């Protein structure tokens, strides 16, 4: 699958972070959508189902894990990559239990992020084929 066709949603309340990340991904041929909080993320998912959501765990309002849970309920095919800033891997592990594909700690390495996106999309494709 061409990177240009990847449907990615980036969710974080840190505007500067998420827009810069989006810009960098664009330079690599990926065109993500962005959301700055849980509510708009859910709205964006409802509007058009992404393949992968890169989701920050800590956000005001609806928390990342809650967003994850709700997305997994409504759109089980969507793969979620969690961003945890917390030193504890607990949020990450909890996220995995709730169905997240993987978790990453901030600050990110963009190449690793893209690799993980790719494997998430691969995994989703395989799961769909099997299902």
């Amino acid at each position, binding site marked *: 699958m061409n990177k240009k066709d990847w449907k990615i949603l980036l969710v974080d309340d*840190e505007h*500067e*972070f998420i827009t*810069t*990340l989006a*810009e*960098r991904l664009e*330079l*690599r041929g990926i065109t993500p959508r962005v959301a700055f909080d849980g509510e708009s993320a859910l709205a964006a998912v409802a509007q058009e189902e992404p393949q992968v959501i890169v989701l920050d765990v*800590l956000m005001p309002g609806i928390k990342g894990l809650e967003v994850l849970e709700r997305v997994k309920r409504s759109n089980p095919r969507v793969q979620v990559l969690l961003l945890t*800033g*917390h*030193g*504890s891997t*607990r949020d990450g592990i909890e996220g995995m239990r709730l169905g997240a594909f993987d978790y990453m*700690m*901030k*600050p*990110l390495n*963009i190449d690793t992020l893209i690799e993980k996106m790719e494997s998430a999309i691969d995994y989703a494709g395989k799961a769909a084929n099997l299902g």
Partner: protein
Amino acid sequence: MRKLADLLKHPLRELQGEVDEAVSPERYTLLRRKIIALMVAATLIPLSVMAVLNYYEHQNAMAREIQNPLRVLVNKTKNSFELFLAERTSTVSLIASAYTYQELADQQKLARIFSVMKREFEGFVDLGLIDEHGTQVNYVGPYTLQGKNYADQRWFQEVRLKGKYVSDVFMGFRKFPHVIVAVQHMTEDGRTWILRATLDTKQFERIIASMSLEPDADAFLVNGQGLMQTSSNNYGKVLEKVSFPLPPMTYEPTVVNMTDPLGREVFLAYAYFPDADFVLMAVKPRSSSLKTWYTVRGDLLFIFVAGVAVVLIAAMRVTDALIRRMKEAEDRRELALREVEHSQKLSSIGRLAAGVAHEVNNPLAIINEKTGLMKDILDMQGDFPAKAKLLAQVESVLRAVERCRGITHRMLGFARRMDVSIEDLDLSELIRETAGFLANEAMHRKVDVQLDMDPELPRIVSDRSQLQQVFLNLFNNALAAVADGGNITVTARPESDGVRVSVADNGCGMSEETLKHIFEPFFTTKKGKGTGLGLSITYGIIKRLGGEISVESTQGVGTTLTITLPKGQREALA
């Protein structure tokens, strides 16, 4: 009313009082004073009572001991006087009855009798025969008194009445102190005559001298009118009026205390003579007679004062020790309270620190992304003058962010040790990570930290954060023990069903005494510093995790703490 007004004015005063009380040193000062006062009172009151009783008892005994010899002496001397006077009187009496008037009237015969008398008995001055009209018929002696008439003198009247007479000392015609002994004799034919002898008072002085009194003592004879019969050192010459009133009359030798006219405290021993109008008196100043008593009293006083001092010092010492113990106990309780507080608090502050560390990750993430983006832009761009330099800077920023990430990671790592969880963990990784916290300090102090981890070390199921605290404690203790430039070796080896980790340092080591108490709560060797909870907490955690902890130490050589941990968890932990 004022209290109420105060309360209204400062509604928090009560609260403040509570706060103050918890730490108030005055409370201890007050308590200390009370205890000391109580102890001193309980010991000093009986001691003082005993000392006072002893003092008086002793004083009385000493006084008796001084008075008795004085009384005996006075009695003896009185007897000597009586004997002297009786002897002289009976001599005169014997002569009066042994010789006829005619014989006595014979000048030659009387002279011969007198010379025998003088030879046999000392003290006779003269001898005279006086007829019933009071005329001295015959006289032998140093004066010319022949023919002198005594009819109107008192002694003559008395001898006529009583037959015998011993006079007071008087000057008489001869202006020389003397005593007259006169005896009246009556012949069968009814004629009466009187034989009269004069005695030298030197004999009195001699008797008194024979008492051999100390120089400041005094003894003398006084007559019933208080006239001195012998000279005294301090109270008047012969025939002068004695300078103090006469004591009550008694024939028994008696000792009284009095202040003499010279203002001295004296013992006055005296006895009245039954057969003569004399009182023998001996005066002894109490100061000199009580010299021994004073030394004894000095000793007593010294013992008392020393006793009081010992009691005071002991009371103070004991109280200090007591207060110190109490303070320590209270401090410990406070400490324990604070420790409990602290464990609850740490979790919240750890959470805060974790929160901030996480916060720091946000700008770092942004810097990371922005710099990444700038690098992307540079990569896309064709060559231009500053490109290489800009790229180098961008790379340096990315490296800096990477380093920062390491730091926040580490901080979050030790904030994380507040969480409680049992997990499957790699002990060598945990030890490495924990040692990393102290790497900076170790490097600073040039302490060589060797981690010797067996690569075959099995994974164990345990509490990560608790173990992290254990190792943090052990490493921290080791670091505290070694001198700059010292060595710390951490060895981890597999055991039959667990892992053995030892932390060895070449620091100051511990004394046997310290080793004995090392795992007790609140024990600390860092005086005034530290809570002393370090190793007891470590001990507690290790025990809870089903492990064992032991310590070996040689003073001046170093300390090795060894812990063993089971591979799996026992039910105790569940």
